[in-house]
């Protein structure tokens, strides 16, 4: 029995696999959450290598920045210290010029000398080497050797300026002039020597720092390279382990994973297809999926996939049958995700599960339903037959009224049995093909309802339905009409009317009852649009499920909405393909359900029924003016006898 396919297209659920494995601690627990790593699961070792790598790189960058800043300062200090010699010479020259009566400013050059010496030793601002009265800050000397030499430098400058001052005060006439000049020159020479010495020391210190920087950077670089290498190896191993794990899962899964290319061919096939379909994965790659799908299922598979292709990221569920290598058919359920936008997949990913056993189980349960329902149906048919005979022979109005009530109760019981047959999924056997007037179908549906007298049929156009659909449409309408009469006050009427529309014909069943809430309407319309397989939920809204199933068989749309009068209006859109004007055949025969049997005999609708529809379907509104019933000749004798049907 083909399973009723249902395609549900929705947004793909982003249930990303968790990446934080248990048992981690410290930094290692945080690392696998780095976005750059995606879903890659890392082991503990890698969890520590990455922080070490990051620390090393940070140390290199930080140390580099710090040392570069320091060396920049050192270069400036070397430059300023080198200038000391020039300043000493200028001061000496200025002093001698002034003593000789020339114009010079030894105070200014002496002050510059002191200022520079102080700044070199203790830090401070001095005139920049490039001049233009720019000042630059230099750091204090840190190295003890440099500090001692600069300190000596400062002492010598003090002595030099004191000697200069004495010469300036005494002039050439002073008896100590010659000795003073000599001392000035000696001090100047000593200062040059000491300054050069200090500059040499600073330069040596700077070179040592640079050399240390290079060594440390090389060491850190090597460590970083090792860390990067270890990280790369561990990442590669983690990736390989994960890939192996994934391959193992895919290969040993009972499900099969198929990736469909945009042209519908199989781009990837997991090896587990061998177990499910007896085919080699390599043989399937490049072939069309449609070649494996049962011809009866191809239409809805194509429809489902076509819908899905238009919605990137969405998922769709559908069921179908796939052909085993040995020719048998396997029932499968597929969850399909559109990953066409994912460059790593670029296709539709199908997760296909073999549900042949479940399908067989469902079929056996459906068959059980069907058999039980047919037994009940057979008994009720016999009961109705008996009641009909009693009604015909009865003249007492009171007794007749009681018989009518029994008749209706039995009719309802029969429709319940029919509902079970519909829900079992077993197609009803049909033995008629002649078109049936739509008006008669509507009247037959109304006649099924206990409170038929409250139903007013008006404005049904002169159209016919194909015999194959008439029974199901009448059943469908009867359910809706009964729903309307059941949920509206006994004093109100239920109106059934029809109206042609662009794409078919709309029958409207409108009541004046208590109505339904918005939520109830939504739920009911959902059930009507997509009836579920028989389960516990069906029992709560069985009528709607039956209507939904019957409608789905013939492409009929049924929708409930609020009535203007406060009740509910059920709209039944019969598609144009089902309809024909009286005397004509429909332009196109409705789809014959798989497994259904169409009798070549043009029997009347009233004569059918292996599955339930009886002659009473032809009862007009005035029930007892109906023609004599013609019991369907094909009724299963076992069912008629109330015996189990094989």
């Amino acid at each position, binding site marked *: 029995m083909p399973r009723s396919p249902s395609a549900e297209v929705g947004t793909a659920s982003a249930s990303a696999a968790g990446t934080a494995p248990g048992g981690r601690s410290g930094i290692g627990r945080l690392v696998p959450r780095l976005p750059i790593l995606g879903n890659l699961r890392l082991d503990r070792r890698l969890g520590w290598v990455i922080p070490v790598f990051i620390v090393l790189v940070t140390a290199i960058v930080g140390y580099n920045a710090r040392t570069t800043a320091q060396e920049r300062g050192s270069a400036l200090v070397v430059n300023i210290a080198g200038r000391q010699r020039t300043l000493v010479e200028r001061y000496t020259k200025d002093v001698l010029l002034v003593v000789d009566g020339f114009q010079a400013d030894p105070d200014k050059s002496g002050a510059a000398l002191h200022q520079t010496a102080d700044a070199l030793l203790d830090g401070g601002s001095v005139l920049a080497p490039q001049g233009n009265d720019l000042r630059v800050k230099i750091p204090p000397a840190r190295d003890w*050797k440099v500090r*001692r*030499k600069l*300190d*000596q430098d400062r002492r010598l400058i003090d002595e030099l300026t004191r000697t200069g001052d004495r010469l300036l005060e005494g002039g050439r006439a002073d008896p100590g002039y010659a000795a003073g000049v*000599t001392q000035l*020159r*000696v*001090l*100047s*020479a*000593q*200062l*040059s*020597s*000491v300054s050069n*010495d*200090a500059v*040499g*020391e600073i330069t040596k210190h700077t070179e040592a720092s640079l050399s240390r920087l290079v060594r440390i950077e090389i060491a850190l670089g090597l460590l970083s390279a090792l860390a990067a290498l270890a990280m790369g190896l561990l990442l590669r191993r983690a990736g390989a382990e994960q890939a192996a794990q994934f391959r193992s899962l895919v290969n040993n899964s009972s499900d099969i994973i198929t990736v469909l290319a945009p042209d519908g061919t199989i781009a990837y096939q997991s090896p587990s297809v061998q177990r499910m379909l007896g085919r080699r994965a390599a043989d399937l790659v490049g072939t069309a999926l449609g070649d494996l799908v049962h011809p009866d299922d191809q239409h809805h598979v194509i429809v489902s996939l076509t819908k899905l292709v238009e919605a990137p990221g969405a998922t769709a569920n559908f069921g179908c049958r796939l052909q085993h290598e040995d020719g048998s058919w396997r029932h499968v359920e597929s969850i399909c995700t559109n990953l066409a936008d994912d460059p790593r997949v670029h296709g539709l990913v199908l997760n296909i599960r073999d549900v042949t056993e479940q399908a067989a189980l469902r079929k056996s349960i459906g068959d059980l339903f069907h058999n039980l329902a047919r037994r009940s149906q057979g008994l009720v048919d016999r009961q109705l037959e008996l009641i009909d005979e009693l009604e015909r022979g009865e003249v007492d109005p009171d007794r007749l009224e009681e018989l009518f009530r029994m008749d209706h109760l039995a009719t309802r019981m029969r429709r319940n049995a029919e509902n079970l047959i519909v829900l079992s999924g077993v197609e009803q056997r049909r033995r008629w093909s002649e078109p049936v007037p739509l008006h008669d179908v509507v009247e037959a549906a109304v006649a099924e309802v206990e409170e038929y007298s409250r139903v007013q049929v008006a404005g049904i156009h002169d159209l016919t339905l194909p015999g194959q659909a008439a029974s199901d449409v009448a059943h469908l309408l009867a359910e809706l009409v009964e729903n309307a009469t059941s949920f509206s006050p006994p004093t109100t009427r239920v109106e059934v009317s029809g109206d042609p529309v662009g794409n078919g014909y709309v029958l409207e069943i409108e009541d004046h009852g208590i109505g339904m809430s918005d939520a109830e309407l939504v739920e009911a319309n959902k059930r009507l649009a997509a009836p579920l397989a028989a389960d516990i939920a069906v029992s709560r809204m069985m009528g709607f499920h039956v209507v939904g199933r019957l409608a789905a068989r013939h492409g009929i749309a049924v929708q409930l909405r609020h009535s203007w009068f406060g009740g509910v209006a059920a709209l039944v859109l019969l598609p144009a393909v089902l309809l024909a004007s009286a005397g004509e055949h429909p332009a196109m025969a409705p789809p014959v359900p798989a497994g259904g049997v169409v009798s070549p005999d043009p029997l009347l609708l009233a004569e059918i029924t292996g599955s339930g529809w009886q002659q009473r379907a032809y009862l007009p509104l005035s029930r007892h003016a109906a023609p004599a019933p013609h019991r369907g000749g094909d009724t299963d004798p076992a069912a008629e006898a109330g015996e189990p049907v094989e």
Partner: protein
Amino acid sequence: MVWTRARRHWAWALTLVPAALALAVLLTVARRHEPAPPGTPVNVLLDDFHVRQDAAVVPTGTVRFRILNQGPSTHELNIVRTALAPNKLPLQRDGLTVNEDAPGLDHLDEAEGLDIGDRRTLVLRLAPGHYILYCNMEGHYLGGMHAAFTVR
């Protein structure tokens, strides 16, 4: 007694520490008994701007000058044999450094580029005579960095 892992470690430690101490003592004693290097030792201290030695007269023969620069600037030490007075050495034309090639100066040896704290030893075989030790860096000699020295 059960020899646990911890006890074994302690036993090793108690054995090794005395052994190491004994070795250190032996090495120290052996060093003290090393034969003294030949020559008369003369300790020379350099600083800004002085030369000081602990002996002004030494016997003829090998002399070991153990030089220590106390800074604060870099110095050098030249040893010349001359009959001139320590402060009367001939100068270069710049008038700031000694002319080491001038007649009357017999330049024997030198220790150059002595940074603060540097030690250097010069070993010379000296004949009897008058010698001068001086630093010939710019202005140092004129600043007073010289000392006389006699070998008898």
